[in-house]
């Protein structure tokens, strides 16, 4: 992984407008593998499977260092797309090219074992995100300082308050950085002080000119203040892609019309 990072760093300096992420005609359907039982297979043999088209051919390219906000109403495929880009889902059609970048989905407390101490969980979670033991060891202190949960770092995670749990989890994902970061809903964790700290850290992460970020959020203020470009998804279709001040007003209008229509 280290070698890969070096390689991307060297290519970074060569051209400024390097494409970090390409999504081409991305289709994702929920079907095929459906929960069933052995008996049901006999009775339902040959019946058609239900399909839900979550993404219907979304294509876009993202330059390195850009911050993309993704908006859309509930169920429009935002999270599905992030997870597909992170490699958790496979596309049913189309492809996703990361151009050799490392990627991580900022999510809370992946792979934690609640009976183990916070410190041990840093390693467990970090290794799961694809970092080596040495890389984590080098950043362990920084993570512990950032999480700021005192002596609890040496106690089992099950003794943590929910705030402490999220603080540690956020610290792990925020300090172990990757080239592309995917953020699903802005993380508002911990007390007011930590919230500010994590917001600042996020800004710091985002402001690194080599880092590409994708944010899914329902808070249009957050999107407006953090992002360069906005991608608007509606029912799995790409509605608009463009600068914040162009797309957001249209999106707001659309949502307002929808609520009016419902009334």
């Amino acid at each position, binding site marked *: 992984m280290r070698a890969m990072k070096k390689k991307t760093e060297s290519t970074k300096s060569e051209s400024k407008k390097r494409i970090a992420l390409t999504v081409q005609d991305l289709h994702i359907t929920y079907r095929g593998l459906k929960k*069933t039982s052995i008996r049901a297979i006999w009775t339902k043999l040959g019946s058609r499977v239900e399909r839900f088209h979550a993404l219907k051919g979304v294509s876009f390219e993202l330059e390195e260092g850009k911050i993309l906000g993704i908006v859309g109403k509930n169920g429009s495929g935002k999270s599905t797309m992030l997870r597909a880009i992170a490699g958790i889902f496979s596309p049913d059609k189309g492809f996703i090219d990361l151009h050799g970048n490392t990627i991580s989905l900022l999510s809370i407390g992946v792979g934690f074992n609640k009976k183990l101490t916070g410190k041990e969980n840093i*390693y467990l979670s970090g290794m799961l995100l694809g970092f080596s033991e040495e890389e984590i060891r080098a950043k362990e202190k920084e993570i512990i300082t950032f999480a700021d949960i005192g002596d609890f770092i040496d106690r089992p995670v099950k003794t943590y308050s929910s705030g402490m749990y999220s603080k540690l989890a956020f610290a792990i994902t925020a300090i172990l950085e990757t080239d592309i970061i995917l953020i699903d809903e802005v993380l508002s964790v911990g007390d007011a002080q930590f919230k500010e700290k994590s917001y600042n850290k996020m800004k710091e992460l985002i402001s690194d000119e080599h880092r590409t970020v994708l944010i899914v959020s329902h808070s249009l203020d957050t999107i407006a203040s953090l992002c360069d470009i906005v991608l608007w998804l509606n029912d799995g279709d790409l509605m608009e892609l463009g600068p914040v001040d162009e797309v957001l007003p249209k999106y707001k209008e659309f949502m307002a019309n929808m609520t009016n229509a419902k009334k």
Partner: protein
Amino acid sequence: MKKFIYNIKKYYKYAIYSAKAELKSEVADSYLNWLWWVIEPFSFMLIYTFIFGTVFSNDEKYFASFVFLGLLAWEFFNRMINGSVKLIISNRDLVTKVYIPKYILLLSKSFTYLFKMGISLMILVPLMIYQGVPFTWYMLLCIPIFIVLYILTFGIGMILMHFGVTLNDLGNLTNIGLKMVFYLSGVFYNIQKRLKKKPTLSFYLLRVNPIAFCMNELRKVFLYQKLPSVEGLLVWLGIGLVLCAIGIHVIHKNENSYAKVI
């Protein structure tokens, strides 16, 4: 296959770390908990030895060691099969949030079971000394037998893991299957001696059922100072490798869809 080797290289450290973490968490509540890893297999051995040795009067030589060897191989197989069926679902948090080759989960689980089997092997040594079983170089031949057992179990485990994602009641079916295999494998009886009058039946029981086969071979090298059957081992190794290849293929093809189902 290339992808498999690459993934194993990339993630085996995680698998080991996570296996260690799981074992640690088992003893985390009290430091005496690891004693159960010793007490449990030992007690089962005592129970079976009493019932099938004394109550059903069995004159098998070194009967306690005989039962214990069977149990140790059986427990490994049993845990792996039971564990693999619900493996993806019980790791829902992980599977829906991060990409990890799914057989790494099984690999990690298998390490914890191997560790427990190792403990059982360590109990076996004093037991064999107590029973006066002669120690010979034949015992080293247990290594290829364990390798065959591992590969076979891993292959079956991967396939069951895949179907366990979509089939809710696969667990019930495997439970029945496991019970059957348990009694047919001769954990507490000698298949050849018990079925002396039905040689064809014992012939097939020992050859069709890989667990019975592995148990029998293990007993040969540990208790009877005999060579294991090379052709038998090779055949089951081949079958095991084919099952692994099928499992790897099925998982590579489907693993990215698991997150959609669970």
